[in-house]
């Protein structure tokens, strides 16, 4: 792996405990998952729910489009946090809740901000961030919380 590859993934200036306070905003991540990407992800996590690939079944259930799986949107929150805090960041908790149906082939914005930051008993830093995953009509489809441990 080259240093450039690392730099393309992480923020130019990774956040640290000293550099954040409650309310610090993380760089925004955007995603526009296609149906193919959703199928690939479902195969990777062994989720075969037809809502994620079967248009006819999905319409029978009253939805217009096949649906982005919650675990993918949870992973977006995790990804946004690790990109922001750099290579020393270690995810130690993730919480997410789907709040609305998320169709494929539309753009989503993943926005996060710091809600707490401090030292743990072992001397390591713990930062907690809240996230929203928002669709094009400004509807929040997922709420997430990520705990990041820093060396």
């Amino acid at each position: 792996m080259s240093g450039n590859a690392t730099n393309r993934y992480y923020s130019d200036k990774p956040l640290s405990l000293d550099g954040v306070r409650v309310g610090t905003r993380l760089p925004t991540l955007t995603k526009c998952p296609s149906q193919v990407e959703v199928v690939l992800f479902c195969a990777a996590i062994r989720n075969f729910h037809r809502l994620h690939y079967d248009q006819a079944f999905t319409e029978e259930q009253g939805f217009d489009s096949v649906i982005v799986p919650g675990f993918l949107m949870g992973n977006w929150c995790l990804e946004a946090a690790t990109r922001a805090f750099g290579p020393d960041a270690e995810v130690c908790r993730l919480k997410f809740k789907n709040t609305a149906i998320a169709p494929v082939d539309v753009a989503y914005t993943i926005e996060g901000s710091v809600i707490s930051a401090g030292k743990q008993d072992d001397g390591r830093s713990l930062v907690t961030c809240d996230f929203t995953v928002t669709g094009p009509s400004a509807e929040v489809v997922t709420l997430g919380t990520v705990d990041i441990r820093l060396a």
Partner: protein
Amino acid sequence: MSLLTPEVMSWVGRSIEFWSDPISATEVRRFVSASGDDNPRYALLETPEGSEATPVPPMLYYAVTRPLVPASELANDGTVQEHRPMIGTGQTMGGSVEVEWLRPLALNDRLRGMRTLASLNEKRGRRRDFVVAEWITEYWDREGALVVRERYEQILF
């Protein structure tokens, strides 16, 4: 009529034990390419013997513990008809998930899971009545150390 019959409620407190596949480099590559999260931390898959364990994407705990079954054994909605009470049409959807990693997952980890149905609560929805099942799952490594705790709310209808 309530969806929570006495037979359904008798499931509360029941547990099931299961083992994961070992976390392989193939599983890691598949997850990384499918998720689009190409964190360079997970590109280092060649670990010299004796060095620190190679970390893998945290969410892989879920992938490697899901059962692989023939399509003929899937429920109508495509989900695995695994250990769960049959409620209403038998269909399910994911609700909220909370996962705590007590240490980073690593290549070759093999997890033993214990999944317990903690509660069932009936709710009135706009489209239909449904039940929220709260599952608590703990995952241990080969040495018996607790690695992951998960709380998962599953919607049954």
